């Protein structure tokens, strides 16, 4: 499933140089030792490498820390006062949690799509152009906006009304607008936290198709509660569990592997039970 099936879409070309290697080309190497909210140990010991040209799915029961780990990958959690991260997230050989790293800059390279569609209260065009302006983009903004909207499979629906408010779109269109906004600046990595949970099945399919196209150029990390979605789109799947032994509910990575392996031949008993729907 790719651009050839939907000829009217143009995928964004060449976000990053492509290495032709058989092994995974890890672009964001996340090694969590401990993540605290205040005194509460939310996540421990989880290594989740995010590879280029792949979708890495995060699954696991509610509260196991999927969002927490995902939001650690672009330092979104820094906005929460009590958040403390112990570990490393290596991006191009640099730990983004190093002292001299500016989290604001990190977020420009590692884009994020949220669970709830959250377009700005401005025109569709300005929504997509927002990141370009932010990065003082000097080239042809119109071209970039069109490219991003095509990339998000939204162009045909909005090309006649780019001046309308982004909030006037339907929920599914808003979410695709947010994806367009995130990919307009061509970040290398796209983090998506349950991007389809507010969408109907048709819009969900559209966004899924879109993710499959996006992975040609971006590394995508996707949190999902939907097992079918994980099997449909994820190349790699990371399964998180909850460990109650220490008193609190601490999330940790149970196992990670090819999606096919996780769902069909899980190594861990816990994974087997979870993917079979035996607990939640």
């Amino acid at each position: 499933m790719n651009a050839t099936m939907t000829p009217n879409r143009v995928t964004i070309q060449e976000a990053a140089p492509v290495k032709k290697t058989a092994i995974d080309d890890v672009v964001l190497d996340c090694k969590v030792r401990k993540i605290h909210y205040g005194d509460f140990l939310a996540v421990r010991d989880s290594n989740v490498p995010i590879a280029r040209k792949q979708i890495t799915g995060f699954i696991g029961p509610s509260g196991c820390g999927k969002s927490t780990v995902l939001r650690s990958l672009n330092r979104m959690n820094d906005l929460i006062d009590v958040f403390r991260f112990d570990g490393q997230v290596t991006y191009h050989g640099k730990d983004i949690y190093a002292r001299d790293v500016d989290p604001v800059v990190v977020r420009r390279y590692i884009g994020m799509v949220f669970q709830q569609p959250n377009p700005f209260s401005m025109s569709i065009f300005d929504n997509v152009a927002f990141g370009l302006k932010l990065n003082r983009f000097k080239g042809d903004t119109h071209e970039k906006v069109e490219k991003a909207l095509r990339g998000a499979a939204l162009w045909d629906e909005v090309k006649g009304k780019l001046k309308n408010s982004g909030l006037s779109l339907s929920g599914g269109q808003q979410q695709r607008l947010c994806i367009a906004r995130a990919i307009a600046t061509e970040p290398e990595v796209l983090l998506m936290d349950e991007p389809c949970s507010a969408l109907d099945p048709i819009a969900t399919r559209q966004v899924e198709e879109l993710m499959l196209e996006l992975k040609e150029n971006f590394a995508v990390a996707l949190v999902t509660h939907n097992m079918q979605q994980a099997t449909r789109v994820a190349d790699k799947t990371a399964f998180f569990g909850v460990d109650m032994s220490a008193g609190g509910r601490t999330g940790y990575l149970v196992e990670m592997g090819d999606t096919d392996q996780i769902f069909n031949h899980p190594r861990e008993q816990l994974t087997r039970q979870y993917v079979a729907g035996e607990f939640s």
Partner: protein
Amino acid sequence: MIPVASMVDDDAAMAAAVRAIPRLERQTFESRALKSGLLTTLTWAAALLAAVPLFSVLYMLVVEGGARIDLEALTALPPAGFEQGGGFGNAIVGTLLMVGIASAIAVPLGIVAAIYLSILGAHTRVARVSRFLAKVLTGLPSILAGVFAYAAVVLWMGSYSAIAGGVALGMLMLPTVVLTAEEAMKEVPQRMKDAAFGMGCTRSQVIWSVVLPTGLPGILTGVMLAVAGAAGESAPLLFTALFSNYYVSEMVEPTASLSILIYNFSAMPFDNQISLAWAASLVLVFMVLIINILARLIGQPKV
């Protein structure tokens, strides 16, 4: 043999016997309906009663003031004692000037303060104290703002002036601007701010490119309401701008205003002055009305 139709009838009778069919028609004379009707009538009456003073004032203004409004009234200088004709052009200019000065002080200061209260230091002690003080200030008798500006500006500059009047009005506008702007910016959804942070905005970029533009309609509504309130004030101007029979030519001299002109002329024993006071009132009300309508238009949510 029993005909089919009668079997159906039997079934219907059975059903009716088991469960009485509810009467859905409106029962006008049932006690519940009567009570509700009575209440509705009462609220109607109260609303009408409350509107009576407003409409009678408006009616008088239009009848009495409308008769006197012409180009002369809008542009000429106030007449002296037994003089005929004249107008209040200088008072219109003076009011606009002082409201302008007041806005120039209160709007930027108020919005910046609101940014602090709503975003930067929302939960700090400073914010709590100043929010409380702003609320207290909204209830400040307007004459005290005049007294303050008299002490702070008039005594210091040695003269009544448009500046002193503007400071007094600005002081009255400030709390309204601060509180409405804070509210407007607080209403900007957290997820919009998250989106902006996620794009790699610094805090000030989030404020400038997302929070302020999104909250702008609400902020402007507050500003307009504050302006409308200030335009109609007379008490704070008594001590600060005083009055003048001439067009304002410099900032540090007594300055005319519509509200003071109305106050002065309405107490005079001359018909000419009294009719001018009516006309000036109509102009003032009209100005406030326009500002209020603008506030409504701006405040409407855009989709």
